[in-house]
């Protein structure tokens, strides 16, 4: 067969590579700011777009979708072409993919800090951006699939199985979790409510980790590790087993984010057992990565690329063991809502994703610029300071998690909470938070040195935009080898493989989500739970806008230490009108599910003062002040539309209520304003703070209404 000549497109890889480096630095600096705000709350500058509640989603979105996202595209576009011996199918689509993705990132930067958010973790972007992401993802997938179809290599390599699984699963997750009803151009409500919203959200959230941070990176590992080590992959059959097991099992594990919540027990248990079963498939990837280095460990000493990759794979192994352990209910009872979770994700984020990305960049830049790495010394410095950074980040966070959890749970002998004031359990963590910020800072120093090193490397070489290659086209007919492994047939039929992957990842989600949506007994209704008043609904939207869920949960677990502190544990039926749910995943501040309930209820004036400056009511508090809520007028122009939208979603507001909604809102606002005036606080009923107070005072009230009536 005659050889065909063609070019690999390095231009598109370079674009994504530069974007990866830039957004890596930016996203991590934003994270550092958030970390420092927990030590020095004044670093929020009492400015709305710089508060922790808005900065933290910006950090998570930036590092996941901008840094790792661009890293995925960078590595996929490089390796896919070479593994298939063909150029990307369409340069136009490649470039649309690149520029479209960067526009989406810019859109995130222009919306999240300004309070445009759906209030669902890692899916905060509002609906127009969600649609843009969907389209862009299709562009990426189409370009990849067409490239696969036009390949010059009969079989597709394991890396590409992972790319395909990533493409289809992320598409499914993103679309189903983003079902939302737009109210205006940048405001929407989640289609699901309460328990169902929580289940869908964590099915998504967990699998965003699985299929955005893990499977594509495993694909990259399968390409770059054997390339850099020049060693054969350890075991082909291990790669088959762990690939299918991983994608099938991963999808079930989402409910482990909701243990001891109001999620039905059976769904929680499925989350637990599938998380435990996930250890082996995850470790299969780690083993295949590390054992590929057999006989090449001497190279690890000299090669910056391999050094980064070894630590990355090790971190992957550690966090995929730790994750299942944290999914055991007795461990989760300690770890959940604490900094332990933060430590866990950063072993994965800084170690696995960060270090694998840097390893890849150190491999790619010298290759594509036809030169040697500018400075091995600098690369070694980056490696060591980065590793130290991870250690300095993680250990204090583990310590903080254990400490806070133990303090929450400790009782005195006479049956009282040993630390009744939640704030005590937070101020205790100040030194750990400081040390974590230090760890993060030195990690970033390493990244900056690394980027500088890469720039100098590129400077000294000359970029090979189109890399010449040659290969024979595929023969029209293929005769299979005798005694070949059955899986080889699938590797010749990538579309069949892709369809099977869709089947594999659909099963778990369907079995968990459909019964929770349809079977009524999963969410027993509570008759006294009523829809929010228009003022409370507006207050809730402010709560979402300010990102309160980043630090406050609304989910009291059935533990003595929680019911003594916050009141009755949360019931599934209490959340049926919550579009979206706001259970949260971290308690930097106390739970608010019963903030308006009889146990915790505080006067309106307390909330007013507290939002203006939290330290007046809770000396030593690290919560940022929210002075703009006191100055800004509430936007009532959408109130009627919001009521209608909620009715569409199934909230039983009476027909025509939207017409009187504003009047209803104003009447309730007047009551609160009058009450504040009684304590000498002069404000107007149309201020945002009034709506937020109304919402906070409503939290947890509904199931008490009968009791309250009796005690009066």
């Amino acid at each position, binding site marked *: 067969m005659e050889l065909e000549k063609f070019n690999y497109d390095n231009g598109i890889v370079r674009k994504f590579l530069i974007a990866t480096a830039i957004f890596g630095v930016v996203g991590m600096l934003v994270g550092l700011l958030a970390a420092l705000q927990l030590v020095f709350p004044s670093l929020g500058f009492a400015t709305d777009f710089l508060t922790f509640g808005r900065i933290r989603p910006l950090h998570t979105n930036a590092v996941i979708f901008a840094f790792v996202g661009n890293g995925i595209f960078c590595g996929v576009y490089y390796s896919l072409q070479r*593994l298939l011996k063909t150029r990307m199918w369409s340069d136009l689509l490649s470039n649309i993919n690149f520029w479209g993705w960067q526009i989406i990132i810019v859109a995130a930067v222009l919306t999240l800090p300004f309070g445009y958010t759906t209030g669902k973790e890692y899916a905060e972007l509002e609906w127009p951006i969600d649609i843009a992401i969907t389209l862009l993802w299709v562009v990426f997938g189409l370009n990849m699939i067409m490239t696969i179809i036009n390949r010059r290599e009969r079989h597709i390599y394991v890396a590409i199985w992972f790319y395909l699984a990533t493409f289809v699963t992320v598409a499914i997750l993103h679309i189903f979790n983003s079902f939302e009803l737009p109210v205006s151009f940048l405001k929407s409500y989640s289609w699901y409510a309460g328990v169902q919203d929580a289940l869908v959200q964590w099915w998504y959230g967990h699998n965003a980790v699985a299929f955005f941070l893990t499977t594509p990176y495993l694909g990259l590992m399968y390409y770059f590790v054997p390339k850099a080590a020049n060693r054969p992959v350890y075991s082909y059959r291990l790669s088959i087993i762990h690939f299918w097991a991983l994608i099938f099992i991963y999808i079930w594990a989402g409910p482990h984010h909701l243990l001891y919540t109001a999620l039905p027990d059976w769904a929680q248990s499925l989350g637990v057992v599938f998380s435990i079963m996930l250890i*082996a498939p995850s470790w299969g990837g780690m083993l295949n990565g590390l054992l590929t280095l057999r006989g090449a460990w001497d190279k690890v000493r000299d090669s910056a690329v391999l050094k980064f990759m070894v630590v990355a794979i090790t971190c992957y192994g550690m966090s995929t063991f730790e994750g299942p352990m944290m999914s055991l209910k007795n461990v989760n009872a300690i770890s959940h809502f604490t900094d332990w979770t933060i430590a866990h994700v950063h072993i994965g984020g800084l170690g696995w994703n960060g270090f694998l990305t840097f390893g890849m960049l150190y491999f790619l830049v010298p290759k594509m610029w036809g030169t040697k790495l500018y400075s091995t010394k600098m690369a070694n410095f980056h490696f060591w300071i980065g590793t130290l950074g991870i250690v300095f980040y993680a250990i204090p966070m583990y310590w903080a998690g254990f400490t806070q959890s133990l303090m929450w749970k400790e009782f005195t002998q006479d049956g009282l909470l040993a630390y009744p004031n939640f704030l005590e359990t937070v101020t205790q963590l100040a030194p750990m938070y400081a040390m974590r910020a230090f760890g993060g800072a030195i990690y970033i120093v390493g990244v900056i040195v690394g980027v500088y090193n890469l720039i100098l490397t590129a400077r000294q070489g000359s970029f090979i935009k189109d890399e010449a290659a040659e290969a024979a086209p595929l023969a029209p007919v293929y005769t299979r080898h005798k005694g070949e492994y059955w899986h080889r047939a699938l590797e010749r039929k990538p579309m069949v493989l892709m369809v099977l992957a869709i089947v594999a990842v659909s099963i778990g989600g369907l079995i968990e989500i459909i019964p929770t949506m349809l079977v009524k007994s999963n969410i027993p209704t509570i008759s006294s739970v009523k829809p929010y008043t228009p003022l409370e609904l507006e207050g809730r939207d402010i709560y979402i806008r300010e990102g309160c869920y980043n630090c406050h949960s609304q989910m009291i677990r059935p533990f003595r230490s929680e019911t003594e502190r916050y009141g009755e544990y949360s019931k599934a039926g209490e959340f049926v009108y919550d579009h979206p749910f706001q259970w949260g995943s971290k308690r930097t501040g106390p739970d608010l599910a019963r903030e308006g309930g009889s*146990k915790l209820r505080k006067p309106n004036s307390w909330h007013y003062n507290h939002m203006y400056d939290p330290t007046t009511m809770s000396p030593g508090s690290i919560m940022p002040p929210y002075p703009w809520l006191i100055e800004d007028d509430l936007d009532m122009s959408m109130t009627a539309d919001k009521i209608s939208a909620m009715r569409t979603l199934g909230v039983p507001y009476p027909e025509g209520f939207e017409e009187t909604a504003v009047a209803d809102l104003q009447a309730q606002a007047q009551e609160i304003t009058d009450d504040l005036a009684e304590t000498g606080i002069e404000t107007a009923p149309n201020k945002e703070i009034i709506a937020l107070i109304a919402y906070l005072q409503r939290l947890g009230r509904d199931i008490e209404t009968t009791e309250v009536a009796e005690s009066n």
Partner: protein
Amino acid sequence: MKTFPIKRGLALMVLAIAGLYPGTASAANTLVKSTGLEDETLFMILVIIAIFQSLAIVVIANVIKAVVSKSSLWSGTAGKAGAAVVTGLLLMVSLPSQAAETPDFDALVTMNDTAFIALVTLNLFLFAAFIYLVTKLNGLLNMIRQANGYELPETFITKLNEMLTDTVPIEREEEVEMDHEYDGIRELDNNLPPWWLWGFYFTIVFGVVYLINFHISGTGDLQIAEYEQEMEAAELAKKEFLATQENAIDENNLELLTDASALAAGESTFKLYCAPCHGESGGSNPGGVGPNLTDDYWIHGGGIADVFKTIKYGVPEKGMVSWQAQLSPNKMLQVASYIKSIRGTNPENAKEPQGELWEEAVPEAPAEEAVDSAAVELEITMAEE
């Protein structure tokens, strides 16, 4: 051996963090309680284990040192590295012995939590160092054996290793190499590592048993049952504890406290929990959240029992939080008594009166005199003591 200082830095950091947090009482306490050991005994045992481990490390380190210096295998950098390891370990060994020789022995024993955590961490670290050195020594000996032409004996460990990994050695890896390559990437077809596969089976069995236990046989308690048991056990434990205590204070049997130490304790509790709403002085301030507690006007009654009840049960509809889950009855009484003691202090910038004029059962005296008489009373009680 550039990496060494970093490792030592890590170890020191762990110790430093261990020292940072004095509150993890529970671990040490539970151990002390469950074993019935005295604090001192536990401490001594840990110190002795640490000393023994240190000695073992010194011995092995010296053996390695001797082997390294005699063996021609090790020269140049490798020898230096070995020496560095040994020196480093010796340095570490000196840590516990210093701790043991600290003259202020009693002080160490009494700060049990921090010392306990530090000692346990130290022991774990020493143990890891010990194991590390033993494996290194074994490796060294094997290298010397090989260099001298001896076949390495098939030990239990090597057999176990083979059984668990089922791997084709690198020298024979062509046997399992696949007949394809992708962009130069070749693939071997080693068997699935048996330890991994068994682990996988184990987790699957675990999953099935778990589901049966909680959802089919019903032998495991789901979260609400678990919660109810927890609450019952806590209630029981609390009752048992309170039975050993003198009569608990409640609103029916309380008496106003007047001694200075109780009032001082009440004051500090007040500053911590009450001051945010009722002001440092107790007078709140104009526009303050809570009412003025120094004047003669009370919304929910101004008698000591009334004040105690307001603190204990709260007034949810007014925003007064219930404190009975957070403060012990004695503490609540101290605060209530303190509040009674600041009546009539007329702090500056206080809030206007709210509620109704409250008259004590005893004939009302002018505010100033009330203060004086309270002060006099105080002086008397103090003199009596």
